[in-house]
């Protein structure tokens, strides 16, 4: 393989001189792919650089001949046109030589491909489900078995979308989430990807993992992460309105820290289950409801509950939200969703207390003021 560091420096110098725009800082810029932190991402990087330099070589050769000819074989310089216009030998040469170059590229490419598609012998498995517009992570075996949570765009990033002041103070604007996927270092992790609605695609560049999440089907990929740290990625398949707003953050920690995180998660899950058994006050429900609404509902139904006419219904004055006899229907549409529309089934995403809170919130916010309270116990019996 080529000497990567030398060439990557050369690559940067070449591209920077090509784009020498004064006054612009390229400081933290990646102009190129990073090598990444998994064996696969390094192999991909090597392949990428190899093909890149093959392409540069071809370009230099072809454009060199062309430019030489354009300078020297011009009429204004008195060049007289030759009349040659056929040569089977030359045609054969420039068919066979490129073919050989392609074979030389295809051999290592095939080797890497076979390796990256082999997801066997995993130490642990995480199931990733894409939703409009968030990710769900389920640890389905090994020590984290049973941990299950959603990962949404961080509130600070959401606030920064239309607020330049917040945006400029947020170094991880649009690449931060409210809850990170936590993985142990030096472990062979298998990812299973699927989707609840449309096609999404889960991508962490530093792992060399990008895989479509198709509704109704499961794809897989794997990573052996060799370095602790925080890695960021994005959804890369157009999945509707907020496609640009569903980042991915993975925190890779030592095995000991991972064990502690697993224990904390399990304790927190037990506490959350207990909170569904008590009575909640109106204030508690409204505060919690506002949070749940902002994370799960506001993307479609709007921060002010106005919706998007023709696409997503408004909350304000909607019969299902304001009619007292429609409370069961209101709870039902949140738990089970509405088939054939973008309204998801939130039953498995939200706890009893979260659903009770958001129902109460929707019935009392946005000028709806019905005064009705829905308790977690009612959600439990409705399930």
């Amino acid at each position, binding site marked *: 393989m080529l000497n990567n560091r030398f060439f990557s420096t050369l690559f940067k110098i070449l591209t920077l001189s090509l*784009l020498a*725009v004064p006054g*612009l800082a*390229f400081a933290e*810029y*990646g102009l*190129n*792919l990073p090598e990444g932190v998994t064996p696969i991402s390094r192999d*991909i990087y090597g392949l990428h650089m190899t*093909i890149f330099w093959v*392409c540069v070589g*071809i*370009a230099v050769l*072809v*454009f060199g*001949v062309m430019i030489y*000819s*354009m300078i020297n*074989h*011009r*009429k204004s310089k008195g060049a007289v*046109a*030759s*009349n040659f*216009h056929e040569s089977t030998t*030359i*045609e054969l040469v*420039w*068919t066979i030589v490129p*073919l050989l170059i392609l074979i030389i590229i*295809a051999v290592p*490419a*095939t080797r890497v*491909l*076979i390796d*990256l598609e082999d997801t066997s012998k995993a130490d642990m498995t995480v199931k990733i489900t894409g939703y*409009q517009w968030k990710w769900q992570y389920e640890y389905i075996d090994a020590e984290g078995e049973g941990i299950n949570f959603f990962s949404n765009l961080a509130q600070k990033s959401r606030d920064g979308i*239309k607020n330049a002041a917040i945006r400029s103070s947020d170094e991880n604007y*649009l*690449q931060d989430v409210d809850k990170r996927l936590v993985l142990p270092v030096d472990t062979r992790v298998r990812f299973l990807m699927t989707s609840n609605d449309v*096609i999404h695609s889960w991508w962490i560049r530093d792992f*060399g993992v*990008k*895989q*479509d999440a*198709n*509704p*109704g*089907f499961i794809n897989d990929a794997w990573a052996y992460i060799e370095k602790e740290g925080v890695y960021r990625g*994005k959804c*890369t*398949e*157009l*999945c*509707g*309105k907020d*496609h*640009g707003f569903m*980042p991915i953050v993975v925190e890779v920690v030592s095995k000991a820290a991972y064990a502690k995180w697993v224990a904390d998660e399990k304790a927190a899950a037990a506490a959350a289950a207990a909170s569904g058994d008590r009575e909640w006050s109106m204030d508690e429900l409204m505060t919690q409801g506002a949070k749940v609404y902002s994370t799960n509902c506001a993307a479609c139904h709007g921060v002010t509950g106005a919706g998007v006419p*023709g696409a997503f219904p408004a909350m304000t004055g909607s019969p299902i939200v304001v009619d007292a006899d429609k409370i069961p229907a209101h709870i039902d549409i949140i738990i089970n969703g509405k088939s054939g529309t973008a309204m998801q089934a939130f039953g498995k995403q939200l706890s009893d207390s979260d659903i009770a809170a958001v129902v109460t919130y929707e019935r009392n916010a946005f000028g709806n003021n019905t005064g009705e309270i829905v308790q977690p116990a009612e959600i439990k019996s409705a399930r």
Partner: protein
Amino acid sequence: MATTTTEIEADIHAHDDHNHGPEPGLMRWVKTTNHKDIGYLYMWFAFSMLLIGGAMAMVIRLELLMPGLQYVEPQFFNQMTTMHGLIMVFGAIMPAFVGLANIMIPPMIGGPDMALPRMNNWSFWILPFAGAMLLSTMFMEGGGPAFGWTFYAPLSTTFAPDSTDFFIFAIHMLGFSSIMGAINIIATVMNLRASGMKLMDMPLFVWTWFITAFLLIAAMPVLAGAVTMMLTDRNFGTSFFDAAGGGDPVMFQHIFWFFGHPEVYIMILPAFGIVSQIIPTFARKPLFGYSSMVYATASIAILSFVVWAHHMFLTGMPVAGQMYFMYATILISVPTGVKVFNWVTTMWRGSMSFEIPMMWAVAFVILFTIGGLSGLMLGIVPADIQYHDTYFVVAHFHYVLVTGALFSIIAGVFYWLPKWCGNMFNEKLATIHFWWAVISVNVLFFPMHFLGLAGMPRRIPDYSLQFADFNWIASIGGFAFGLSFILLAYIVVDCIRNGKPVKEARVWESAKGLEWTLPTPAPYHTFTEEPPRELILKESSHSAH
């Protein structure tokens, strides 16, 4: 059989006596069956759509100028990317190539007109209605299509706005138009070619279009099938693309790309033809390797049907499938390379001059090759994992479609415009326009390679801060490139109205081809008498007669 041979002959002679021109007034354009009139209509339609699609690109670049949402909402942004793609592919590039075929194929093969003139009229006049229907969706409740020009299910079925049914019907109509245009081109080349012109005497533009027409006939019905399945999934309870009903969303992608990949070549093969006409003219040398060019075009066309899933490497294809599609894909670079090498060798030891069409052709060869090389990179499956659905792909396909297909159309227009209208364009302005467009288009698209490698996904209305600088540069390049089309419009209109008249039949001194034996401006009716074989051989741009 009431008419006798004598009557027909008398009729023919009557026409010979007064070579009638076009009908006066606006109805000329509605009722015309003349290949040039219809061709001009196609060109103006394509140019209008180019401006509309370009305006949408300006909205996209404006929103991406800085991080944050400043001007449009995400749903509208998605409509812009979707409609920009659909309009540029189906409204601008394809009709422009059909227009050039209509205007140039009869004069290049020594024929009188297109073989099926009434169908020709119909295939054009479907277009404005289909285009209007497509655009009207943006004013419907719920907005227009917002699922990308590739309209992957289920985003385009279960999760799409109601206007999608109008989009489907517009696609059906565009398909009818393309298929009729293609049938007409095949019929014309087969039946109206001068009897002295054998297939291997045909100019390369005719050859590439002839092959493209077969691609169109094979590919467009597949697209019609895909949208029809969408229509029934949306309205009639089928589940072709819905896993819950036993369907498969990935099947949509297979069907779409079985159309979509040949479609890519539909948009580039005629470009190869145009450039192969222009380079020999200004290198003053016959085209190098004519027969290998024809074979390369045919092999690209055949290969284009067996590589479609390279757009889908990340959908969860079996590893054997990925290997096959990788090998088949990179194999296409061999015949494509042959073409580039042939153009360069045509220039080699020629006696070159750089008139405007030649400058565009040279820009095409260089910039299309850059797009082709990034295409080779994308064909390598493991590397594609990092490139797929990022701005690297956006850079790649804009290099092949803008600096490839669109530049070849501009080259062709400058090459043949004096023959069409009898006037020379303002060469000084055209030179300014050339450099303006070529520099700005690279400022626009070249940084996108870096954005993609730095991790920016495509089709997002807002981005994190590390992408800000290159997006700013690309947007500035985009606005400059957009403005260049206003200048282009001025140059063309100015040429038609006030240009200096050209008297020579052979507008470019060393141009070869039957079209240059016709008077300038080209007469309303093309060859009324068949050109003899000696003339055809003498006028060949690829052999040394």
